[in-house]
């Protein structure tokens, strides 16, 4: 009888012990997975350059410091892939509207057409109201060089030959990841990585 009484007690203790062990192991695995997200390799540094922002202000590689940046190459009259890229960028711009630490940088590969007023209009057309999303204009040779040698994004015949990838740059100006703009999976990952870097910056 006494034996029967203690049996449920034992089961409860063992069950709680098991739950505790499972909880710890599970938490460890989750943390390990999260760390792997954080352990994005440093793929390079942003190259030296100074371009002009749509406002007329200069923008150089130093403006990446202290911000998490998503960089892409576009031109405003682009009929093909750019509208998709711009939509994705707009989505991110909206998503992080309360986070001035996150900036978006679109560099024009067609400075001839994309004068500063054209870039300003383009920004307005995409609902950009502040300086979290910046539009840069620079000499086309320099833009190609920055793209190919700095951001390591291949350029074909400009302007249409620009890359459709997004580049994630951390708050130290280091390139941490490339994301294709035409893939949902890749975009989810980009959001995840931005979130991880934001969390790391706050600490």
């Amino acid at each position, binding site marked *: 009888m006494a034996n*029967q009484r203690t049996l*449920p007690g034992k089961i409860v203790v063992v069950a709680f012990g098991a*739950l505790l062990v*499972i*909880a710890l192991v*599970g*938490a460890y*695995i*989750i943390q*390990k*997975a999260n760390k*792997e*997200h954080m352990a*994005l390799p440093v793929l390079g540094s942003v190259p030296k350059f100074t371009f002009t922002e749509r406002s007329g202000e200069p923008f150089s590689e130093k403006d990446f410091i202290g911000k998490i940046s998503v960089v892409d190459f576009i031109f405003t009259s682009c009929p093909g892939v750019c509208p998709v890229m711009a939509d994705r960028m707009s989505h991110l711009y909206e*998503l*992080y509207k*309360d*986070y001035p*630490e996150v900036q978006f940088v679109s560099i024009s590969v067609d400075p001839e057409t994309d004068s500063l007023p054209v870039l300003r209009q383009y920004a307005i057309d995409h609902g950009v109201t502040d300086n979290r999303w910046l539009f840069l204009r620079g000499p086309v040779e320099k833009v190609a060089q920055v793209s190919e040698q700095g951001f390591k994004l291949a350029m074909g015949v400009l302007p249409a030959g620009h890359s459709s990838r997004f580049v994630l740059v951390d708050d130290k100006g280091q390139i941490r*990841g*490339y*994301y*294709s703009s035409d*893939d*949902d*999976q*890749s975009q*989810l*990952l980009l*959001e*995840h*990585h*931005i*979130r991880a870097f*934001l*969390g790391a910056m*706050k600490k």
Partner: protein
Amino acid sequence: MKRFRAWALATTAATYFLIFVGGFVRVSGAGLGCPDWPKCFDRWIPPTSVSQLPRTVDPSTFNVTLAWIEYINRLIGVSIGILIFITTILALKHARRIPRIIYPTVAALVLVGIEGWQGSQVVSSKLEPFIVTIHMVLAFLIVSCLLYATLQAHRLVSGQTAPAPPETQGLKRWLAPLWGLSIVAIGLGTQVRSDIETLVKQFPGEPALTLLGALGAVHVWHLILGGLIVITTVYIGMKILAQRGRISTLSAKSTWVLMGVALIQVAFGIVLVSLALPPMLQVFHLWFSSLYIGALLVLHFSLNHHEGINHG
């Protein structure tokens, strides 16, 4: 029949384990650990390092831990499918003329097939919350079918079929509404979870505790309904246990489990809210709700088919 009961019971237990693993996949964010289906990064054995990735894949989409968590969920899923298949064969062999065993077993087999296919939809929908919830609901249905078949086999093995004393029959009527309410509470719970996910996306830098305050009515309803269920469960449980000596061991045990699980769910809920939703606790909270549903089923069954008086 004893062999069938043993298999059915083992399969039920294994399915409960799979539900746990599935919950773990959800909270660890491993749902898209493998972006393709059924293969993982185009391999039957997931890659263990970036160098094994196919050339067409963006290496930044790869997280070895998440890929393996997701893939292990799929492997266990396939194993459970095989277990259910064997259980079905045993049912056809030993219980061909017993519809109460054949129907739920075959239903489980069909549902597990659907579940596998639906899992591919979960991946291709990029974890659309509604489709993920369907995945969970199907798992609950499968485990209920298996549990029901096990109980029926148990009834045949143990032999007694008389109903429990009349005092308990009135209480038994409460169990079906409780079942319905728990399903609603679980549904609301999954909604709370996806609301939090949306908020985390919207306010990526905010700590989870702040976001909890931003949760709307769904959260409150989940709390109210959960509280109501637990109070009712304990009230009915105590009344059933008051009949001790006149109800079967199985009835008494399942009542204890039911009440225990209900109270633990309250504790989990409180800790979840006060500790900013630790992921593992979310898994336990969900998993215990599946145990609660199971215990309800067992209790209802054992009050219907009384298998001998507990004189202990």
